[in-house]
C-alpha cells in the first residue's frame, strides 16, 4: 500500500486516484481543522474543497525530503482557513457557540484512537505554560497570524515566532514522554 507521501508523488504526475485516496484518509481531519478555525460548517466545507483542489494543483510543490504529507495538507488547510477569515474581516464565534447537537455536526468523539490521541495531546499541553498554551491555541486553532499575535501582546514579531517555535518543540518533547 502506498504511503501518503507516495500518494502525493503519484499525484504529481496527474494520478487522480491518489487524490481520492488522500481524501478518504484525511478529509475528516482537514474538515475538523477548518471547522475549528472558522466555526462555520459552510466555510469549513469550502476550505475542505479548496484544500484538496489546491493539493491537486500544487502537488508539485510537495518535497518529501523536508516534510510529511499530513503536515503539507494540514498547512494548506490552515492557510486556506486563515485567508477565509481575513476575507470575512471578522472573528468567528467561540467553539462553545457551535450547536454540537446539530445532526449535521457529527462529532465522532467515541472513536477510541482519536480519543486517546486527544487525551495524549491535552495532557502534554497541560505541561506547557499558560502563555505557551495561549500562543498555540491562538496560532493553530483560532487562525491568528504571528503579526496579529505580536500586535495583541505588544511583543516583537521575532519574539512571538521564537515563543511559538519553542512551545511546539516543547510539545514534541512532551508527546514523546507521555
Amino acid at each position: 500500500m502506498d504511503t501518503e507521501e507516495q500518494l502525493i508523488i503519484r499525484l504529481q504526475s496527474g494520478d487522480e486516484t491518489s487524490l481520492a485516496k488522500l481524501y478518504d484518509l484525511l478529509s475528516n481531519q482537514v474538515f475538523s481543522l477548518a471547522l475549528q478555525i472558522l466555526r462555520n460548517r459552510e466555510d469549513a466545507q469550502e476550505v475542505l474543497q479548496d484544500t484538496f483542489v489546491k493539493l491537486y494543483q500544487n502537488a508539485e510543490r510537495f518535497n518529501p525530503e523536508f516534510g510529511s504529507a499530513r503536515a503539507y495538507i494540514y498547512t494548506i488547510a490552515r492557510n486556506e482557513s486563515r485567508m477565509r477569515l481575513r476575507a470575512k474581516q471578522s472573528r468567528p464565534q467561540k467553539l462553545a457557540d457551535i450547536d454540537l447537537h446539530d445532526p449535521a455536526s457529527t462529532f465522532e468523539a467515541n472513536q477510541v484512537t482519536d480519543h486517546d490521541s486527544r487525551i495524549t495531546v491535552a495532557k502534554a499541553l497541560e505541561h506547557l505554560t499558560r502563555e505557551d498554551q495561549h500562543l498555540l491555541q491562538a496560532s493553530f486553532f483560532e487562525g491568528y497570524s504571528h503579526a496579529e499575535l505580536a500586535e495583541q501582546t505588544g511583543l516583537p514579531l521575532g519574539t512571538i515566532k521564537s515563543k511559538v517555535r519553542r512551545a511546539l518543540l516543547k510539545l514534541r518533547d512532551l508527546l514523546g514522554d507521555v
Partner: protein
Amino acid sequence: MSHPTDFLLDYALAELEPEKSLELEAHLRQCESCRSELKALQASFVALSESLPLATAPAASWAIIQERIKPQTPSSGITEEKIILTPIKNRRSWQAFALAASFILALAGFFWAFQTQQNYKQVRAEQRKVAGWLSRPDVASVQFLDDKGDRLGSVLTLSDGRALFVLRDPPEKGLAYQAWGMVNGQRTSLGLSNRTLLEVSYTGYDFIGTSLEPEGGSPAPTHPLGRVAIPLEPRPAPENKPDTPTSSKDQTFLEG
C-alpha cells in the same frame, strides 16, 4: 555552521518567501540538526491538528472537488443516435446489424473518449510540471538545438541537481528519448521517455544530452540529438526569446 532556526517555523507553515525557502532547503540538505527540528515542528503541528474532535466531512464535498478538477474534454459522442430506414422484410436482420453497429460505435466512442481523457490528464500533468519548474526562482534554461540549429525544445535545470528536457515533439511509435550524462570520457544512461518530458539528475556530469533510441533504450547512443554543458549558463535573453541557445550536437557527441 550557523543555523537559520528563525525561519524553520515559517517554512513549516508555508509562510516563507520562495527565495528564502530555497536557501533554507539548501541548508537543510547539509544540516541534520535543522532537519530534525523541522521534523519536530511539523510533528507537533500534525499532533495538534489531530487532537481536535473529529467531524465528518460533508458527503457532497468529494463530488464538488471532482467537478472542480475535471478537465474540459470534447463530448464522447456516445449518446449520438443513428436512424436507419430499411424495407420491412429485412428489418429484423437490419435491426440486429444496426444494434451491433451502434454497440461497436458506442464502444469505439467510449474507448476514444477514455483515451482522450487519459491523454489529456497526462498532458495537463506535464504542463503543470513545466509550470512548476518555470515558477522556481532558481530555474535556468537554454534552448535545445540539433546540429542544423533547429530547435528540439528546451533544457531546464534547478539548483537541487535536477534537469528537465522539454522536447517539442514526442518520439515516434516504437522509439524513445534516452538521456545521457557525461564526465571524464565516461557516459551514463540517465533515463528514457516516450513523451516530451525527460527528468534527470545532472549532479556530477559536465554534459547532459539526449538521443533517439528504440523503446527500451540502447547501451550507447545510436541517434544522438544534442547535449548541453552543465551548469547551464543562460545569457541575458534577447527580446522575444525566452532563453538562450547553447546546446549543440557535435562529432564527439556523448563521448565526454
